[in-house]
């Protein structure tokens, strides 16, 4: 069974003055439902990508899950990234555990980037040796994103964006090598590319477009066998809890093209994730 993505909604603004995370998440998810022409009553499950430290709550989903539509629904949350959430939602549909799933991710930090970066490292070693500027300078634009994932039925593509999910994967760099800049994140990106290629129908380079976050993604292109694929403009980067969905939404595809999106979670290039989608 394949799954389709509908109602993909991305808002890449930081919170306005006085705006709360709850208000933004509600607005984004409601817009996704409206765009997909789905009532919340037709939703079975919600998969969230969100971060506690940024939100300043010990369990941010306790306050924000129902803003993402989870009241009386099955709900789960990952801290990997929005593409991993998208993939998990798709697997819930494929496993027959849900028919329509909301995916919601946000990065709307209330705390400053340097403080968040500092607590992303282990206390005994990383915080002593890491080049903190490197972490802080990493792409972390704010925003919120949501979409609906459901079974792709032949003959009823439905409204919305009409993308079907071919495959997804996630991974991470070796922490110590990443800290030292010794072979990482290249190795992690190479693995990510190889794994995505294994999980998808073979890519035809001529008919595949790729959108990746800023950085050196050559190992990913090599791993996936996509070095000759059309590269979409890198554009603005957003935090990994939003970036993957933002790239999916921004991609301008040629007729018949497949799309691969790969991005990094947080800290940048320690967590990584990728998906492949096609037009329904």
């Amino acid at each position: 069974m394949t799954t389709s993505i509908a109602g993909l909604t991305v808002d890449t603004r930081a919170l306005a003055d006085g705006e709360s995370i709850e208000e933004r998440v509600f607005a984004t998810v409601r817009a996704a439902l409206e765009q997909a022409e789905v009532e919340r009553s037709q939703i079975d499950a919600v998969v969230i990508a969100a971060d506690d430290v940024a939100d300043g709550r010990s369990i941010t989903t306790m306050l924000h899950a129902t803003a993402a539509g989870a009241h009386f629904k099955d709900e789960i949350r990952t801290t990997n990234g929005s593409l991993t959430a998208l993939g998990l939602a798709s697997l819930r549909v494929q496993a027959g555990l849900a028919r329509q799933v909301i995916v919601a991710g946000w990065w709307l930090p209330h705390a400053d980037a340097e403080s968040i970066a500092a607590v992303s490292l282990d206390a005994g070693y990383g915080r002593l040796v890491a080049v903190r500027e490197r972490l802080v300078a990493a792409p972390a634009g704010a925003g919120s994103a949501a979409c609906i994932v459901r079974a792709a039925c032949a003959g009823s593509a439905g409204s919305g964006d009409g993308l079907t999910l071919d495959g997804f994967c996630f991974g991470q760099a070796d922490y110590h090598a990443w800290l030292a800049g010794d072979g990482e994140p290249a190795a992690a990106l190479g693995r990510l590319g190889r794994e995505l290629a294994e999980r998808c129908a073979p890519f035809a380079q001529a008919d595949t477009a790729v959108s990746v976050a800023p950085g050196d993604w050559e190992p990913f292109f090599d791993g996936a066998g996509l070095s000759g694929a059309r590269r979409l403009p890198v554009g603005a980067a957003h935090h990994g809890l939003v970036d993957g969905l933002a790239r999916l939404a921004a991609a301008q595809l040629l007729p018949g093209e497949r799309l691969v999106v790969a991005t990094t979670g947080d800290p940048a290039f320690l967590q990584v994730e990728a998906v492949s989608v096609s037009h329904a």
Partner: protein
Amino acid sequence: MTLRPVEVRGHLALEEHWDLRHRHALGRAGEAFARGVERGAIVAARCAGCRRVLLPPRVFCERCFCDTELFDFESREGELLSFTVVRMPFAGSPPTPFGIAYARLDGSDTALGALVEIDPDQADGGLAIGTRVELAILDSGFGMERLRYRPVR
């Protein structure tokens, strides 16, 4: 963020104090409520769909997934639906013993939690579910610090 080595039962550990400043936006409903308390008012929300009156106020109804409207809520009396009397403090808690009560004010569809006046000499604070309480707005403090339930004598 500072780190210093300490001994924990014969093992070396690193002690750290997090200093993360968060500035939590209150949102439209929260800000209206907090500003309302300053002028002696209680702001509630009414769901545009199910018409439930919601306290604390919020900008959307979790059930109907639609907008709410905010308004000044008149009632200051209601029914006590649950409570506890806390004897063990934690960092940042109100001074113990203190009482937490949830009461549904007349005309509201949900219960608002707030601190409650207690008889500290009684284990249950002298409170009972089903009794009438009133919600007072004190002169000092911010937001919920200014609200107190009191039994209606």
